[in-house]
């Protein structure tokens, strides 16, 4: 940066006698090994940090000498390191803006009011556009915290930390030893019946969390003056204002304050764990279970993410010694654009080194992308839940996140004096970028696909059904290729033979009796004959059944056995399926095309298709032909596709087979070549059809319209 020794505005401050307000405390702090001075006004809750050179100038301002005299002294003492007049004015003006200095010259009261008014307006604007993160300050907890601090002080000490380790450690032990049980109760957490319990657990955990922050700040001598409620996507959560931690000199204290909420919550989780483990099933047990989950897993997952402004963000910015991480990250991005894309030479990087700038920039990108994503998620969620109100809030958020920055960007482009010299280039770069984007998205046709889940069937497949009854004798074969008529399995049923022998004996007896009757004038021989004929039939049956003890392959092909090992020595009843033989031949993939793609399905030519199967990444199978079954279907070809079969298609609750879908669909049957090794009968996969190319913008617009239609039923 160019440093200017003289400023044309110097006369406005030169003769003033300025000093810091008595309520301002200044501390040394090291940020990334560099010395900074952090000033903090105890009344105004304002923070300001400056470099040692600037502090040298400020420290000399004692209210008895004029600014000009002080500046001369600095110049004499430090020469080139002293702030120039321009810098001195900047320092003074920032201090004045933060209400940290007083002058012998009367300050403009109207100006102060104006500033306050502006700040309020800004706060309201932030609230309005950040309505999903609405904060409402309620009361000042400082007195309460001070009074109760003595009771909790032992917690924030070395023995306290040891006790914490012990407690949390043993709780983890308990969790590990109850691992099985832990997961058996897993569904209980989301059970509607447990929701009120969950809510109570949640509120308690968050209160404990926030008081954790509060007490941590207190412990290190800070003050906590604001406590209130954040409405996080309309869900009330308590919060405390822990900004006092910024003034802590040691980094670990600041980090500790940031983490204290989670640490304290873990105590709660530990206690809940003990109670849960030592009680039998019941209300208390369930509640403790909820509390345990809320206060440990969910809070850590929620808070550790540094891309949103929760605990993790503050911990990260303290760990990396970059206060105001997120705004500086965005500023860094702006700097890059201004410096390298527009060629502006007056842009100032917020970073102190190259590594720092890369760090800030990448954080800026990550947090921005994540904010886009989270906003999308929130809006979709809210749109589902709270139709009218949510829609309004979503509009506000979109305005805050896109429209206002866009407006500011345009304003920057047209009026920013810093890029005055390079404005033509800035226009050109912007127009070219937008133009390139436009062409890429709205003009260049992009491949267009739609996907549909489906199930694979072999065209020639036969189930192997047991026709006899008996105990499995052979261990059977798995996955072998068999020929037609080959014996696959033997059953033994000695009873069968004995039964046959008994019937044969009976038949012999009847034959004998018949002969006797014939000898006695033949009365009643007819009856006997008929009985014998019946017996013979029965015997033939038994013989056939005996023959069926040898299970033979009806067709040639691959033999897939169901539970071959477990069947060994097991009794099989007639009609049981023990496997399937899949013969060589065509494969058919039955794709379930949802209604939203019906337009593409019927009005566009399906150019090509690929089928993939989960678990076989990279293995693509291209169908050779496909046909669309005209007419809507309601029954899935396989229950594996339905929700009950853990498949992707929603099925009706009242269908015990789990094949009747909620929404009608279209069936597309594609023929797959028998080349790939991934083809398995009944395997569930996804087919991707490619249709005529279309620019991305149109595709997205269609997708958005469909989403809106589906959600709002327009």
């Amino acid at each position, binding site marked *: 940066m160019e440093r200017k020794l*003289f400023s*044309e*505005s110097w006369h406005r401050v030169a003769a003033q006698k300025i000093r810091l307000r008595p309520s301002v405390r200044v501390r040394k702090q090291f940020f990334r090994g560099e010395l900074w001075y952090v000033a903090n006004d105890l009344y105004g809750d304002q923070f300001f940090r400056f470099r040692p050179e600037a502090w040298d100038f400020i420290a000399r301002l004692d209210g008895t000498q004029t600014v000009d005299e002080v500046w001369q002294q600095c*110049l004499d003492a430090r020469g080139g390191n002293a702030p120039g007049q321009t810098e001195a004015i900047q320092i003074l003006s920032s201090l004045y803006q933060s209400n940290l200095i007083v002058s012998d010259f009367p300050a403009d009261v109207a*100006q102060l009011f104006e500033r306050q008014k502006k700040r309020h307006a800004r706060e309201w604007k932030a609230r309005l556009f950040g309505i999903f993160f609405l904060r409402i300050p309620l009361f000042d907890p400082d007195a309460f915290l001070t009074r109760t601090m003595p009771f909790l002080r032992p917690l924030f000490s070395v023995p306290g930390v040891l006790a914490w380790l012990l407690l949390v450690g043993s709780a983890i032990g308990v969790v590990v030893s109850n691992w099985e049980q832990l997961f058996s109760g897993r569904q209980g957490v989301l059970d509607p019946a447990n929701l009120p319990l969950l809510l109570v657990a949640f509120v308690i955990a968050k209160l404990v969390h926030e008081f954790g922050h509060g007490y941590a700040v207190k412990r290190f001598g800070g003050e906590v003056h604001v406590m209130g409620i954040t409405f996080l996507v309309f869900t009330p959560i308590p919060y405390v204002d822990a900004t006092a931690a910024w003034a802590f000199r040691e980094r670990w204290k600041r980090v500790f304050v940031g983490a204290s909420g989670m640490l304290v919550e873990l105590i709660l989780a530990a206690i809940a764990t003990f109670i849960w483990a030592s009680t039998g099933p019941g209300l208390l047990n369930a509640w403790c279970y909820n509390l345990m989950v809320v206060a440990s897993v969910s809070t850590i997952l929620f808070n550790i993410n540094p891309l949103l402004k929760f605990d993790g963000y503050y911990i990260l910015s303290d760990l990396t010694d970059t206060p105001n991480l997120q705004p500086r990250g965005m500023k860094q991005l702006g700097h890059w654009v201004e410096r390298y894309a527009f060629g502006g030479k007056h842009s100032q990087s917020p970073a102190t080194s190259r590594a720092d700038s890369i760090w800030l920039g990448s954080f800026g990108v990550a947090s921005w992308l994540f904010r886009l994503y989270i906003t999308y998620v929130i809006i979709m969620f809210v749109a589902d839940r709270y139709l009218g109100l949510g829609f309004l809030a979503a509009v506000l958020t979109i305005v805050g996140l896109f429209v206002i920055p866009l407006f500011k960007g345009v304003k920057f482009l047209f009026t920013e004096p810093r890029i005055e010299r390079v404005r033509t280039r800035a226009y050109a770069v912007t127009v070219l970028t937008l133009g390139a984007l436009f062409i890429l998205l709205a003009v260049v046709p992009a491949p267009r696909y739609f996907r549909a889940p489906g199930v694979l069937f072999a065209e020639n497949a036969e189930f192997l059904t047991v026709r006899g009854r008996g105990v499995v004798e052979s261990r059977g074969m798995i996955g072998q290729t068999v020929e037609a008529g080959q014996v696959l399995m033997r059953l033994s049923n000695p009873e069968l033979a004995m039964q046959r022998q008994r019937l044969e004996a009976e038949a012999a007896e009847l034959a004998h009796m018949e002969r006797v009757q014939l000898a006695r004038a033949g009365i009643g021989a007819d009856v006997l004959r008929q009985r014998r004929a019946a017996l013979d039939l029965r015997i033939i049956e038994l013989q056939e059944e005996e023959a069926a003890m040898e299970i033979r392959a009806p067709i040639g092909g691959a033999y897939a056995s169901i539970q071959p090992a477990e069947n060994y020595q097991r009794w099989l009843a007639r009609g049981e399926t023990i496997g399937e033989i899949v013969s060589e031949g065509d494969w058919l993939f039955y794709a379930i095309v949802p209604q939203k793609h019906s337009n593409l399905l019927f009005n566009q030519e399906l150019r090509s298709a690929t089928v993939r199967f989960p678990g076989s990444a990279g293995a693509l199978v291209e169908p050779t032909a496909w046909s669309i079954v005209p007419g809507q279907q309601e029954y899935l070809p396989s229950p594996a596709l339905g929700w009950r079969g853990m498949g992707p298609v929603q099925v009706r609750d009242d269908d015990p087979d789990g094949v009747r879908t909620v929404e009608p669909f279209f069936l597309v049957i594609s023929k797959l070549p028998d080349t790939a090794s991934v083809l398995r009968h009944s395997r569930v996969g996804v087919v991707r059809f490619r249709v005529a190319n279309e620019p991305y913008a149109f595709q997205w617009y269609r997708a958005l319209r469909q989403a809106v239609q589906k959600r709002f039923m327009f």
Partner: protein
Amino acid sequence: MEKPGIEAGMAGREGRHKFIPPRSEALRTEIRPVDPVPAGLDGLWHDCAGAWESRRSRSQRLWAKALELEALCRQSEAWHEHEFKEAMRTHRARIKRLGARWGAGVEAAMPCLVEAARRTLHLRAYPTQIMGALAISEGALVEMATGEGKTLTIALAAAAAGWSGKPCHVITANDYLAQRDAADFSRFYQLCGLGVASVRAEMTPPERRMTYQAGVVYCTGKELVADYLRDQIALGPYSDAHRRAMIYLLGRHYSGQGAVLRGLHTAIVDEVDNQLIDEAATPLIISRHAENEAMKTACIAADRCAAGLLPGEHYAVNEREKEITINEAGRKLIAEWCEDKTGLLNAQDWVMDLVQQSLQARHFFLRDKQYVMIDGKVVIVDEYTGRLMPGRSWRLGLHQAVEAKEATEVSEPSETLARLSFQNFYRYFNHLAGISGTARESWREFWRIYGISLVEVPHYKPNIREDAPLRLFYSEDAKWAAVVEEIDQQHRRGRPILVGTRSVDASERLGRLLQGRGMVYTILNAVRHEQEAEIVLRAGDLQTITIATNMAGRGTDIRLGPGAANCGGLHVILTEGHESARIDRQLKGRAARQGSPGSSVVFVAFSDELIQRFLGPIRKRMLKFWLSKRLPGGATLLKLGFKIAQRKAEKKGRRQRFMLLKQDQDITKNLIGAKAKSTARSEAF
């Protein structure tokens, strides 16, 4: 009637302050809250409002009213003396009651005022003048052609403003005009029961205080702003009227020396575009010379250091933005240079700053263009009026750098005591109105910054000036040859000729060329300005050739000499386009005043500074290629290039002025002791 307000209040030693009700004093001297210049969407809305305000129907309404009033005025000519006095008393009392809203009473009082002018000055106001006065009373930007009697128009409105009891200032282009107008109209004001006075540069503070007590004060903008700033310095922390009132109420007294102004309320600005636009590019600074030996030696040393740097190798020169960028090699050289120095010169950053300033002085501050040397002293030449500005100096360090460059004695650096941009100052007035022959082009800027909208007054006599089409040339030599040829031709016809040049240099060069042709001419420029009034007086005579650097804003009419009208009147030649089309028109407007004949022609060359500086590099190269290959359509393209360059220059100037205003406002907002409502009230320590 006039109560000496501030003066009495502060002249406590005379014990008069007890009789002054503090509240009224506070109210009169109070500066109105200045709203920030609308920007963004507000600005757009504001612009729309401006377009509505400047609509034609408003001018038509005023014109119809003026015609009506003129008929009334004719009736009032028959008034008996006591009738006239009675009418005047009534209207005066009414306007006095209206106070700050005095404009509302002007229409009714107009016959009275016109009659007063007729009876004292024997001037019967034209309907155009009446219309102008009405527009002024509405607080408008009035466009009225030169020579149509702007002075009377102003006087009519100023008298009404004076009746309101609020301070009324008529801002003129220079001291001479202020004095002349005040003297010319003193009988008129006297009849109206008002005191009139004019401020001159050489007046002492007590004299000034007396002068400002008058009901209507004629002065230049510079004097008024300077007096205002000096008042602020004198009043110190008590510059705020309410604070002063509070001190009175507490019965205490403060050690202020006393202000000379009695408040700001109405300002009627003559040649308003010159005052509020051209002059507004630089702020007014009150400074004093302070001993600073270290500074002086540092500037001289930096100049030596700068002499060792080579353009292109050690630094880059940006002609368009007038900027110097020192590169790596230059930095290294300066760092080496600093090593064996002591004190301030050992600090590389500061030396760099000073060297940069020296380089700026070397490249952009040229002798006989930006300044002239008189008796070994650097005297600044005003870029717009071409006048010498003795006693003025550039910003801290720059002036010293120029002096060091000229190897003359380096003067003591001046220490700024107070600074105020004209833009901000004129925004303090409750009632601002301006009048000019060339206001139309910049009405948007006037509306945006000062909130005054345009009213175009029709010509009383139709304008018959013939504007010849642009004469275009590739090289400067060809252009000058054509200029001489043109002068020769017109001169043979006997017409008086006025040649406008942009620099002292150019005027002298043209002089030499004419001398070579054996023509007699007069030069009016920064160096030869002693007989200005006489030269101007004779510029309209037959066969007179006058070469003048920028005449705009001098407020002087060139009256045609006897017989000149028969030859075709005054012929104005512009040897270069100015950085604003408005100034070109102003200069052209010197010809054909009040329906007399006249003509004008503009000469433009590709090598003119305007095109070279403001046409973008790509356009410039293309144009150069086109012209050097003598391809068809070159003239059209050059004309287009000229227009573009001029528009760009205008835009740059506009931006600069906005920046200055914004800077002023930002500083006010950000620094302690500065006022939100009125920037300047805390200009002093």
